């Protein structure tokens, strides 16, 4: 079967969700409340199509002129007024709608598309046509007529409306696709979400995906677990990677399996970040490391590293280490994860440190996603041959000393290896204790080993 011709939205991640873009000759309802970004998205798609040498007609049903919309769009990086009106034509349909009703509007759309030889037409303000309709039947007739024209002519059609309907409503049944742009409120935050409810003629990435509106326009972040890590890859057990701590490598019988994911758990102050810096510090030119920190700033990390003899500046200068920091305050995890995977590929990283996995955990909003999120990330990292180390603070409160399993149970099934760094009270003193809790299918030293933190970093006893 030949593939159906697509019209790219110009937003790679939205095209990914749509399995390649909108279908040419398809009619789509783009629905969302005022301010959801429908007009921005439609103009962004229009601008992208024009950049691909296409032609677009944009019909508005607003009573006011286009000036305000143009003023707003002029702030957007994608908008190029130089192409007006040659390949992107803005047409007001308001007067025609007032004068000749829905039949006049439908005819205007058709005649403008034919006149401009457009491959994409956008009708902004469908709700105005609905208000003008003499009956719901007349409105549905308009939708049917527009959809039929899109099919016949091969001209893709976007119908923008703020009217929310039931999923089974006839309008949604008639068109080829329905994309909803909405808000979700959780934990005091408001996040934008996009969902493709219906799409004829191909698979889509179902479910809700977050998006932002910036000066670049709409940026869509597909749910990580929906787009990556579908294939389960196993760690390459034969190749071992140094943990950066020589005695730990001995306890691990040679090191960590290449492509494995390790969770390093411990309460604050036990040296998890120090251990992570040592892991990062053993990166080489052929096996560079990307270090993503959520809590400690790059300056603080560099300072901390210099205290244990890890020359981060030198590692960074030789591209053995790529240090990044993201504030954990109100991040979109799918945005960060998408960026992270792209950056790992870009720099050819073979090691990854996520210092403070809670940066992801706390921002997922839907906490039940963590399992699927981390599994997808882990699978993708394994397929890339990247050995990952995640640090995680123990979450139990008021328990001292912390039991060995505290903070482990939740994340343990999602990673290959689990290491703990704990504080233990003994002989009226607090000791730091390191232990290996889990390394699948391999022998390891299961003893509890005390350690200190000195100029050489983590120093395991014995």
């Amino acid at each position, binding site marked *: 079967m030949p593939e159906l011709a697509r019209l790219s939205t110009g937003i790679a991640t939205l095209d990914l969700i749509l399995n390649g873009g909108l279908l040419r000759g398809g009619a789509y309802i783009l629905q969302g409340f005022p301010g959801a970004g429908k007009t921005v998205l439609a103009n962004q798609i229009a601008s992208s199509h024009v950049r691909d040498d296409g032609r677009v007609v944009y019909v508005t049903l607003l009573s006011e002129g286009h000036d305000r919309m143009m003023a707003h769009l002029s702030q957007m990086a994608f908008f190029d007024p130089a192409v007006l009106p040659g390949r992107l034509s803005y047409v007001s349909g308001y007067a025609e709608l007032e004068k000749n009703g829905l039949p006049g509007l439908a005819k205007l759309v*058709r005649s403008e598309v034919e006149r401009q030889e457009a491959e994409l037409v956008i009708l902004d303000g469908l709700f105005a046509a609905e208000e003008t309709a003499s009956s719901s039947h007349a409105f549905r007739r308009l939708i049917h007529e527009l959809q*039929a024209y899109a099919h016949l002519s*091969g001209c893709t059609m976007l119908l923008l409306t703020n009217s929310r309907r039931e999923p089974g409503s006839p309008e949604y049944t008639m068109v080829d696709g329905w994309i909803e742009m909405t808000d979700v409120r959780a934990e005091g935050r408001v996040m934008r979400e996009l969902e493709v409810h219906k799409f004829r003629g191909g698979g889509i990435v179902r479910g809700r995906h977050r998006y932002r509106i910036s000066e670049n326009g709409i940026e869509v972040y597909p749910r990580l677990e929906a787009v990556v890590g579908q294939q389960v890859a196993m760690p390459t057990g034969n190749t071992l990677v140094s943990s950066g701590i020589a005695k730990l490598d001995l306890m691990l019988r040679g090191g960590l399996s290449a492509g494995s994911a390790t969770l390093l758990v411990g309460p604050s102050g036990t040296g998890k970040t120090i251990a992570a810096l040592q892991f990062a510090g053993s990166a080489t030119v052929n096996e560079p490391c990307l270090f993503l920190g959520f809590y400690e700033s790059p300056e603080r990390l560099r300072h901390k590293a210099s205290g244990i003899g890890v020359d981060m500046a030198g590692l960074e200068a030789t591209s053995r280490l790529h240090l990044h920091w993201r504030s954990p305050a109100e991040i979109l995890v799918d945005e960060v994860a998408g960026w992270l995977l792209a950056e790992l590929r870009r720099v050819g990283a073979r090691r990854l440190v996520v210092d403070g996995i809670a940066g992801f955990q706390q921002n997922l909003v839907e906490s039940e996603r963590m399992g699927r999120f981390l599994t997808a990330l882990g699978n993708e990292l394994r397929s890339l041959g990247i050995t990952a180390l995640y640090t995680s603070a123990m979450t139990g409160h008021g328990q001292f000393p912390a039991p060995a399993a505290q903070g482990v149970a939740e994340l343990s099934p999602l990673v290959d290896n689990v290491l703990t760094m704990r504080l233990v009270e003994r002989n009226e003193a607090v000791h730091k204790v390191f232990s290996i809790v889990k390394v699948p299918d391999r022998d390891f030293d299961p003893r509890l080993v005390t350690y200190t933190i000195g100029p050489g970093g983590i120093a395991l006893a014995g």
Partner: protein
Amino acid sequence: MAKILLAEDEGIIRMLLAEVLIEDGHQVIEAGDGQEALALLVPDVDVIVSDMMMPRLGGAEWVTAARSRPGMASVPVILMSALPLPDEVAGFAMAFLQKPFRPTALARTVQHALNRES
């Protein structure tokens, strides 16, 4: 003004196509399938426009039957379909429009057929 017989089973598509032909000043006889087209066929029709896939009687069948009528063999035929034109009807189709196409493309093709005939 020419007399055009337009056979297309999808009503709204037929309306869209008829509209551009009427705007060009032609008289359009509309049929919803091949059987209806044969029933509405008049001797002075100038151009036949037909979809290929229609219920009851498809485009190839009814046009073949129409052309066997006296004086109809030379009437220009324009066929339309989303699928490529089958070889067996390529011989008598003056033009073929593969869907999707713009309605104005049909108007131009009809005009071309009329110009050739005259």
